[in-house]
């Protein structure tokens, strides 16, 4: 193995009352793919943002290429060869690929010579690393996978040799992930160092040389994924033994109810059934969601696809976010004395940390935000003697319910969705994660170019066939 590319020594960082990083240690070797794994809120992103100059550590030191550094801003980090691709891409949609890549690097925008040189360099880079792209297309017309390539080329163009990728596969289809891994291996073989922030352990095992595990703001272990099973890694990450998801599906396969919960133009959702919608994003999911929203009754819940934009008020407290979809269940006078106990009930039942309903939503990690949204949607004031407020709505629309959340939260949310079905409620699950659909759905409808092209019953589930249908291939 070659030398050490970078090192973090006892990095600590505090936000308000939250200790995001506590004495984080990290050592990454040149020319390796190093995975940074941990649950949401474990401090991975904070450590990486400190590394690329976005935040500043309260204490501890960063050593890059055997020199102690401290960057005033990401610009200086970039100049010394460290760049990050954020989970939410930073691209100007109405500009071309070329313009996005060179943005901010050409001193004189009118200089044709500079532009020509830049173009040559980009073409060379994209050929060299196998990142094929049409440079003159507007970025908004590209698929998510292609946009990711633009982001990576952006870094390569700036001569970055340490690339930090934040949850890069979260938005890719199974086929795109394969080709993306191919690109990563190319980069690695050419001597680039890659830091991969992720929580998908299957991928860590498939591609990473080393992995550092974060838990509760600390680094708990550095491992070689090849020597570890996925379960062992998961336990290190969570800090306790994981209990497998219990599912009594097989017993109830055939006893499907005929009661229709919601009837959409193209299909119906029955009681006690999870209908999965598969398909690469942008193939008509939006239409189905909109149709569902129009037809839903009062007794329904929704986990929107973009929790930040559609499910939460980031600047408001969890108390108020709770009211956002639950105001109907209280009188017109909203008394905190009456409502607050219910919010606390959601927080403790769904293990949302920190357990403080007065904190604003922005201060919670993605996983905790999503758990809160799930908890809120499943909550309804019980009108009977059982006093169980978590019976869940008759119909639940779940769009990408586990996007960007960690294993623990994912297990938890999956369990809740299965519970919904077992109670005889209907669930419509829209997801781009095939694993999730295979695990939860009773049947899967595959969308391609706005149409349902194929339906699979549980007994017919087959990853390859469904993947093929998602890509528009006709399988017999």
């Amino acid at each position: 193995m070659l030398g050490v590319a970078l090192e973090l020594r006892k990095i600590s960082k505090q936000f308000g009352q939250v200790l995001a990083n506590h004495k984080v240690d990290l050592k990454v070797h040149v020319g390796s793919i190093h995975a940074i794994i941990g649950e949401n809120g474990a401090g991975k992103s904070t450590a990486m943002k400190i590394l690329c100059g976005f935040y500043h550590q309260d204490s501890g030191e960063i050593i890059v290429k055997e020199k102690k550094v401290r960057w005033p801003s990401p610009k200086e980090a970039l100049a010394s060869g460290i760049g990050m691709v954020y989970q939410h891409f930073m691209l100007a949609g109405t500009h071309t690929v070329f313009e996005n890549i060179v943005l901010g690097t050409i001193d004189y925008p009118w200089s044709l010579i500079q532009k020509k040189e830049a173009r040559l360099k980009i073409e060379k880079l994209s050929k060299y690393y196998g990142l094929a792209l049409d440079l003159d297309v507007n970025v908004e017309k590209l698929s998510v996978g292609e946009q990711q390539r633009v982001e990576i080329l952006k870094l390569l163009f700036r001569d970055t040799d340490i690339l930090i990728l934040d949850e890069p596969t979260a938005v890719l289809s199974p086929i795109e992930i394969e080709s993306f891994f191919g690109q990563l291996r190319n980069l690695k073989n050419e001597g680039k160092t890659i830091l991969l922030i992720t929580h998908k352990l299957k991928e860590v095992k498939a591609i990473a040389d080393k992995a550092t595990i974060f838990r509760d703001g600390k680094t708990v272990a550095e491992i070689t994924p090849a020597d570890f099973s996925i379960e062992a890694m998961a336990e290190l990450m969570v800090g306790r033994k994981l209990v497998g998801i219990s599912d009594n599906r097989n017993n109830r396969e055939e006893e499907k109810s005929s009661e229709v919960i919601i009837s959409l133009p193209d299909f119906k959702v029955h009681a006690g059934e999870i209908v999965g919608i598969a398909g690469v994003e942008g193939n008509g999911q939006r239409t189905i969601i909109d149709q569902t929203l129009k037809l839903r009754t009062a007794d329904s819940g929704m986990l929107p696809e973009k929790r930040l934009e559609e499910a939460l008020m980031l600047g408001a407290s969890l108390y108020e976010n709770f009211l956002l979809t639950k105001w109907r269940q209280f009188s017109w006078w909203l008394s905190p004395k009456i409502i607050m106990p219910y919010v606390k009930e959601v927080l403790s039942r769904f293990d949302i940390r920190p357990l403080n309903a007065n904190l604003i939503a922005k201060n919670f990690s993605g996983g905790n935000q999503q758990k809160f949204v799930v908890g809120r949607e499943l909550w309804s004031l019980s009108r009977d003697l059982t006093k169980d407020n978590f019976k869940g709505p008759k119909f639940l629309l779940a769009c990408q319910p586990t996007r960007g959340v960690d294993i623990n939260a994912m297990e938890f949310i999956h369990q809740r969705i299965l519970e919904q079905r077992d109670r005889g409620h209907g669930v419509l699950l829209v997801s781009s994660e095939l694993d999730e659909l295979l695990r939860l759905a009773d049947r899967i409808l595959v969308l391609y170019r706005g149409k349902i092209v194929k339906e699979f019953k549980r007994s017919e589930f087959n990853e390859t066939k469904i993947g093929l249908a998602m890509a528009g291939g006709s399988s017999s």
Partner: protein
Amino acid sequence: MKKILLPLFSTFISLLMGLLLGSVIAAFADENPLHILQIIWNSGLGSKYDLGTTLYYANALALTGYSVAVAFHAGLFNIGAEGQLNMATLMVAIVGLTFPSVSPFLGIIISFSVAMMAGALWAGIAGLLKAYRGGHEVISTIMLNIIASALASWLITLPVLRNTENQNPETRQLSLSYFVRGADPLVKFFMDSPTSSSILIIFLLAILLWAFLFRTRTGFAIRATGQNEVAAELAGLNPKLMKVIAMLIAGACAGLVAIGEVNGHTGKFLLGFSPEFGFMGIAVALLARNQPLAIPPAAFLFAILHKGAGDLDIETKNITRDLAVVIQAVVVLSISISPWLEEKILAFMVNHKWGAKE
């Protein structure tokens, strides 16, 4: 406790910065800063009469402050309080002149209704345009301000309204059914200064608006609209309607300036009676961070500065009333750093284990 003390402290710091910079400017102008502060203090609070005048300003500033704050909670920037209060005052004068012989009791009720309705309608236009046609409220309220003042200049030239006794751009005097200043005990107490019992409205409104915004469904819906319109709509709220309602309430608040002016002070509409109360209201709302309960003290503070400013012209050689505007502006600017300041203080407290119990 932390939730209240911390913003209070950082607001105090902002105020201090304003006064400090004002003092530095005064020193550059060869005036003794302490002397300047003393002039402002005496002018704002020095006598019962001065205090009364300050309260008269505070009344109008609090009402326009409410107007801006309520709209802000719905995510709207209401620059139109000036137009709304002008329209309301004009309408109260017109209605009062049209029905001069009613009982004083009815006169007051009519005045309140007309003032609130006129302000609400004027603001409602901007609300409707924003909610259903996407017209930006900043542009439309500015336009409505201009329309209101132009309309007022024209209307008061009509023979039915014009005051024929002098050359002032104003309407005739309203009957004593509306102009109830003579019977107001507060006027006597404050030595016949411009203030009147209408000042009590602002305390009542502070509580009403707080309860409305933070304790009722509609208030919650308005704030949810301001926080995240998309999420509010998905949650089954009606953001468009909430924007209109917020603007109606905002306009009604600004419209209430008419009560203090027509019923409590002059008994007529005088063109340009407002020294841009509507715009100062924006600063007041900022200082109070759009919290209804904080608006009366914020308005009182700005009223002292405004009142004191007048005497700077007379009592100093080198400084004009503009110094008070500079102080107000610096205070508002400093407010913008207070979230940062509060975060630092909080981090410091955590590091030093202060107030560990939440």
